[in-house]
């Protein structure tokens, strides 16, 4: 019984993990059960979803391998001096 009902701390971690699709069906059930009676955690979950949408909507760029190698080479040359 104690594993079915979870605390708010546990629920908020589950909310975070849910944003990365990391929950098992059991954990999803526990989370839903908690949200059924906890307004605070439901509200946090909503904010967390909005935050994920915001981040996923942004375009993130990375240095390519060749760009990295070129910078590394410059740095190596400078370190030799």
């Amino acid at each position, binding site marked *: 019984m104690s594993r079915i009902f979870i605390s708010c701390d546990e629920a*908020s*971690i589950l909310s*975070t*993990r849910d*944003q*990365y699709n*990391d929950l098992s069906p059991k954990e999803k059930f526990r989370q839903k059960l908690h949200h059924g009676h906890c307004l605070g955690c439901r509200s946090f979950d909503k*904010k*967390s979803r909005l*935050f994920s949408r*915001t*981040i996923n*909507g*942004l*375009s*993130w*760029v*990375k*240095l390519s391998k060749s*760009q*990295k190698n*070129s*910078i*590394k080479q*410059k*740095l190596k040359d*400078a*370190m030799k001096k």
Partner: protein
Amino acid sequence: MPEVKLIPEKWVDRYGDYLFNFTISRVNDSIMAQDLVSETFLAGLKSAHRFKGQSTERTWLISILKRKIIDHYRKSNSKKGQAEVRMSYLDSGDQNGDWMEEQVRDLRNPNIEDEIEQKELGVALNECIAALPERYATIFVQKTIDKLDTETICKEHDITASNLWVIIHRARVQLMDCLNSKWYKKG
């Protein structure tokens, strides 16, 4: 706080992508961003003897990068001023006076507005990530942006999966608060 030592050999792998992202959201030019990141590392190497170890490597490199970006804008603004003087809209016959209309029309275009908003949001988020403790920022970026799997990150940082989720959770809460004060309240 334990004293931090600089490890320039690992800068590109550790901070390259983050600094590049930080720069590109401000200068909007991939080649220029790469140059600025590279200049930042070189400047860091040159002034390594002045690093007192009171901040993290990342914070220190970001402060150098910020100065580089300001210098870049100073240079490009002074060039732009000269270019505007040379611009000859009024001499180009039937295109007479189009310059101002083009500017107004561009700004009304909703796509451009969206783009500007996304760019500003990116800048705000990068600043919020920069304000996180280094470990939180690295793990958050690896999981959320680089989409690395949990096991790989745990191995790299020698932490358990539950530690990882606590760190990501705390990072997200701090970022949500930070964005709330930097971005949503502003709008």
